[in-house]
């Protein structure tokens, strides 16, 4: 069954030839296009900086830890095969990462790569939660955008996900399943779909980057140590305790 979809070439207008007035014009956003939008947020970011802000040393350590993780995210994105297509975009604002693309197959590649990155972050005791939604996106520059796909992805992250997972909406889920046998990537519980947080542990997967030497080793024993440590720390915080119980269970399933 032929499943490869040819890319649609798109020669962008030469922005450098536009006048300054054009650049500053209001309302020159491109027409809305359907995209898969991924919104990912670092859990407890605000609280972490608040708690550590009092000490310069711990504040600096925290800052360096996040820098390292975000730096690795962009190292991977800059080298990812799908980013060469000019049909994908990855960015960051504060503790949020985002990614959008028009194609489900590149979205899958992003998810596989992010799954590896997510485990690296967990090893550093940073936990992400996110949402992937299909919807409209209007954008002026790659980093200036709005649309219902952004809103839906945000709601999936903040209202639906609860645990440190990447929640996937029904439309995206159906599109992913349609393009290939990707049921190994996604778990469905109570009609909600999410990316298995430790899917990379289940089977060796090729990561879609060109330079394999970029890939950093992930120590899974440190991940489980961090999960257990957070469980202890949040023993009396019902909301957060459940997140790490969930992760511990997911880890055990994937590591079998």
């Amino acid at each position, binding site marked *: 069954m032929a*499943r*490869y979809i*040819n*890319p649609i070439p798109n020669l962008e207008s030469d922005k450098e*030839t536009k006048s300054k007035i054009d650049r500053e014009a209001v309302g020159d956003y491109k027409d809305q296009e359907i995209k898969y939008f991924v919104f990912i947020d670092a859990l407890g970011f605000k609280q972490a900086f608040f708690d550590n802000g009092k000490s310069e040393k711990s504040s600096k350590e925290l800052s360096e830890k996040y820098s390292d993780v975000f730096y690795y995210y962009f190292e991977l994105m800059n080298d990812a*095969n799908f980013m060469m297509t000019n049909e994908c975009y990855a960015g960051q604002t504060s503790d949020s990462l985002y990614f959008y693309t028009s194609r489900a197959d590149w979205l899958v590649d992003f998810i596989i790569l992010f799954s590896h990155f997510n485990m690296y972050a967990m090893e550093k005791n940073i936990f992400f939660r996110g949402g992937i939604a299909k919807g409209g996106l209007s954008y002026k520059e790659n980093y200036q955008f709005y649309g219902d796909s952004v809103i839906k992805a945000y709601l999936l992250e903040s209202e639906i996900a609860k645990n440190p997972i990447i929640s996937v909406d029904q439309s995206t889920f159906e599109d992913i399943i349609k393009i290939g046998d990707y049921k190994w990537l996604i778990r469905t519980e109570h009609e909600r779909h999410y990316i298995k947080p430790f899917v990379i542990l289940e089977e060796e997967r090729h990561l879609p980057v060109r330079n394999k030497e970029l890939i950093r080793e992930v120590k899974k024993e440190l991940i489980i140590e961090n999960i257990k440590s957070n469980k202890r720390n949040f023993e009396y915080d019902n909301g957060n305790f459940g997140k790490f119980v969930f992760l511990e269970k997911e880890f055990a399933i994937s590591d079998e």
Partner: protein
Amino acid sequence: MLTENVGARILNIITESLYDKPIVVFREYVQNSADSFSKIDGEASKEDLSIQIWQKANHLYFLDNGRGIEQNRFESAMIKIASSHKNKEINMGYKGIGRLSGISYCNKLIFINICSYSKCIFQKYVIDGDKYNEVKNDEKYYEMGFSELMNEIGSYDSEIKGSEIDEIQNLLSPRQKMFEKQDTGFLVILEDIKPILKQTIEGSKFFNELGWLLPVKFKDELFQSAACQLFIDLSEAVEGGIVPAKAYDIHFNNIQIERPIGSGALRDYECKSNFGKYAVSFHSFSRDKIAVQRGNDFVGIKIYIDNMLLCDETEIVPMLQRYGLISHTANELVQTVKGLGVMIYITDKVNISSNARRTFIEIADDDSLEFLRLLAEFIETIYSARYALSRFSSAKKLLEEEKDKLEVDRDKLEELRKNANDALRALARAEIVIDSLEYEDDFDFGKLNEIEQKQAVKRKISKEINSKTREYLSQTTTFDYDNAYEDFKIWLLSN
């Protein structure tokens, strides 16, 4: 089928004129090995089958662990060739010709039929090249039949015994793993290869050329690229059961041969295409220009049949020019297509076949002509994209240099950009189609003279017959070659 009255000169035609590139020797023996794999039954799976090619001292070896030849058929298979109905002097549609290709390039051509590796049962047939050269200079040569010639220059050993078995075992034992699950095979030895073949093998580009020529797999890294699904699709069967990029495990001097396309050779866009029902293809091109990229070997158009290289743009473009299908010079088009990389896999082997020299397709009927038209259309699309991108790029550069003319030239630039974009999208489309043939129903029959009327009727009948033939072939599963025409007529009357 066997022909007794094929002249001995046929071997001369093979050796002197059919095979003018030494590397084709590799194609012929690998093709034979690949054919033998299709006859495998038993425990061996595709992963267990392989072809090993190696050079040691001045000898060249081709070994496979395929079906081999049935023990009681080996001699007849070696000394006889099946013929087609075609004119024997001009069109060489013979089955079994390929195995003789090595005779041009060595002093002795040896065939070892491995009937059972585990039981050391081997058969041998040897063609003596020196003896052949001797016979060729004899007056009697031009009156000799092919079988008579083979009796003169060939010798058969129905079952090898004694120290010869040890010699063969010495050759095979470093590769005994091939025979763990598959007990049969075939070994071809070109003993004392000629300098020209030796030079070819020692050439710096030789391994790369083998990678383009033979039915080998794509590199693993392509299956991790953004276009990985494309390579997966090409490695799976299409309608009709043909796998376009069907690959075998082939090694040369213990190094696995792969298609020499790395992920670095891919450009901005990789697109899949269909050439009607005849072929599938993929092409790789850049978004900013269609021009030769230094250091990128994946250039030009290559046509494959059974995933074996048939020809490239240096044969394709002149052929299209010969048939009046292109409107630009051959040189210009060859340069144009070198600006991208294309691989075309013929999947309809009923209607499209290779010529006897295996240097191009056989132009026999409307189907082959239609395939040529589709090729021509595709090349024209590349040409249009090349110049549309070039005009846009030149205009952009000019505009940057003369910014005070911004207001007026921006519209023109946008128009050029749109044309270039449209041309790129045309190049990326999934299916190549051509406009309906211009001579169809475009004339008043009554106003034609007698000859023109006959020509028009002939075209119409040919078209109908071709269509009916295709329909007949698609519906029929068993064939009787001798009564094929009668059977077709009966089918035609009832349909």
